[in-house]
């Protein structure tokens, strides 16, 4: 759905860039701190009725309470942790599988390469969400891990395609031939020449995949295919809040803001990383 190559933009150049990186780092850092802190401390017990049902925000409950009287801010904080786990898990899985397949395709014979490329195109055309839905639905009982694995696998196709293209570009270089002649093994070529050359672009892409993974998991949870509370993701909170939107609209808004802020934060970070990784882009246009 989203193409990563077009995110970038305007002509203002490097000042705007360092700015995107900083803001992105602050937002993501904040989520990281909040997410990690929930391992030790939360304002209230996430499973306990700490207030009345659907209370409006107050000093005691900054974001109010949900329909079971649980503190919404506590649940949103836990959502940060879940989102970070999902994003990280999905890009680790997607990255490892994707890079491996991409490299294999880049080195493979013409026929195998064509087959892999066609297979990847089909997988990419199949929406992440549907693939994840099928995997989650077929494994008995939806859990956070099935969702992460499903999203990771779906993302791996995109990573693989990118790795393949980037690696092929590097492989055409004269220094690869020189390196091979001087006796470097294929594994050596990958380690010494290919990975160092392609990682900046891959990293930026993975950062964007992180945001997409968070959205995909939230959508799965929204559809009722994610983990139930107290370890619920923002998607589940939003789904529960939709039923009470007439009396307590905030519950349907706050978790969404948390989600969007994390995704935007990661996207800004990716945008900033792109420049750090590739200085030539700064002077384009």
């Amino acid at each position, binding site marked *: 759905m989203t193409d990563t190559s077009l995110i970038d933009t305007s002509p203002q150049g490097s000042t705007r860039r360092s700015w995107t990186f900083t803001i992105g780092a602050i937002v993501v850092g904040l989520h990281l701190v909040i997410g990690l802190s929930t391992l030790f401390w939360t304002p209230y017990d996430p499973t306990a009725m700490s207030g009345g049902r659907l209370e409006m925000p107050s000093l005691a409950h900054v974001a109010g309470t949900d329909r079971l009287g649980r503190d919404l801010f506590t649940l949103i904080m836990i959502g940060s942790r879940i989102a970070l786990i999902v994003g990280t898990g999905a890009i680790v899985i997607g990255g490892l599988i994707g890079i491996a397949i991409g490299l294999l395709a880049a080195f493979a014979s013409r026929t195998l390469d064509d087959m892999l490329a066609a297979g990847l195109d089909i997988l990419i055309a199949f929406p992440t969400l549907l693939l994840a839905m099928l995997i989650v639905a*077929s494994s008995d009982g939806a859990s956070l891990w099935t969702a992460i694995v499903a999203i990771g696998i779906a993302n791996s196709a995109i990573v693989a395609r990118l790795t393949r293209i980037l690696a092929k570009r590097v492989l055409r270089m004269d220094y690869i031939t020189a390196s091979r002649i001087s006796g470097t093994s294929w594994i050596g070529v990958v380690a010494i020449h290919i990975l160092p050359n392609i990682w900046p672009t891959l990293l930026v892409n993975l950062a964007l995949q992180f945001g997409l993974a968070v959205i995909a998991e939230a959508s799965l949870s*929204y*559809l009722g295919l994610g983990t139930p509370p107290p370890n619920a993701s923002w998607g589940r909170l939003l789904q529960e809040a939709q039923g009470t939107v007439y009396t307590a*609209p905030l519950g349907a*808004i706050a978790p969404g803001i948390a989600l969007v802020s994390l995704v935007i934060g990661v996207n800004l970070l990716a945008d900033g990383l792109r420049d750090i990784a590739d200085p030539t882009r700064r002077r384009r246009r």
Partner: protein
Amino acid sequence: MKGAAILSYLLRRLAILMVSILIAAMVLFLLLRLLPGDPANALVSVGADPEQIEAARKQVGSDLPLSEQFVGFVSSLLRFDLGNSFISQAPVLPEIGKRLAVTVPLTLMAFLLAVVIAVPLGIIAAVKSDRWYGSVISVISQLGIAVPVFWIGILLVTVFAVNLRIFPSGGFPSRGWQRPEAAFESLALPISTIAIVMSASLIRYVRSATQDVLGSDYLRTARALGASFSEALIRHGIRNGSVPVISILGIELASTLLGAVVVERVFSLPGLGSMLLLGIEQRDYPNVQGVLFVSTLLVLLVGFAADLAQRLIDPRLRDRTVGTDR
């Protein structure tokens, strides 16, 4: 000569379409069988004895070897038969047809609305990138891709159904399109939801296509020959810029069609997506398989149409008889 080129292209593209449909059917079939769990499980209760399970497997055909199952699947496809639901025993195809009457208008109208919003805004964002409103459009379209579609839906419900009470928060009239105004009313928010998300990403493509046009030699030449800026942009820019945009439109339309599942849940619409979701929850394999097959088919057809449209617009592609499709 030109006509022949088009014809040969058309035939070749049709052949590719047929092969893709066959491959899609195969992939789908395998994917559903590779997943853990026997389809027969939907029919038996927990703790059923082995004979009951065996009987259920026989009933759904999962006791046959995979190859036989596949031959059966393809031959019934050729007879436009997608089987019967495990749960309701109703034939799958007519049910899908009923649901397409919601999903297709929803997707198409959202798509048209998105194009109407995105094309002018994308062009403005590129042409007026030095003005504040140009930048605002770019920033908003970038924010748009970070927002999950279901949240936009919930926000629209909160504003337009809860606070303003202009539109219903969900549901679809049981008499469907017999009362078009009621149907339109209930589709208003879902359509806007999809259109907002879709236009956010479309704006970025239109903007980047316009930027390419702005930097092109032909535009400069046209200006040098005395055409005004807008004249040059309209006469030469639109046709050139639309080629890459159309292929993106095809992909966007396809992903919206498949992505409608979430939006249909937000607004409790009886469309293809909710049929799929229900099928997954109930382990109703024929329904799941049928929905996925029909939607894949639609996606392939959309891709086919987008390719043809590109050929018609771009003579460089049109006159090429050999070569790949991209």
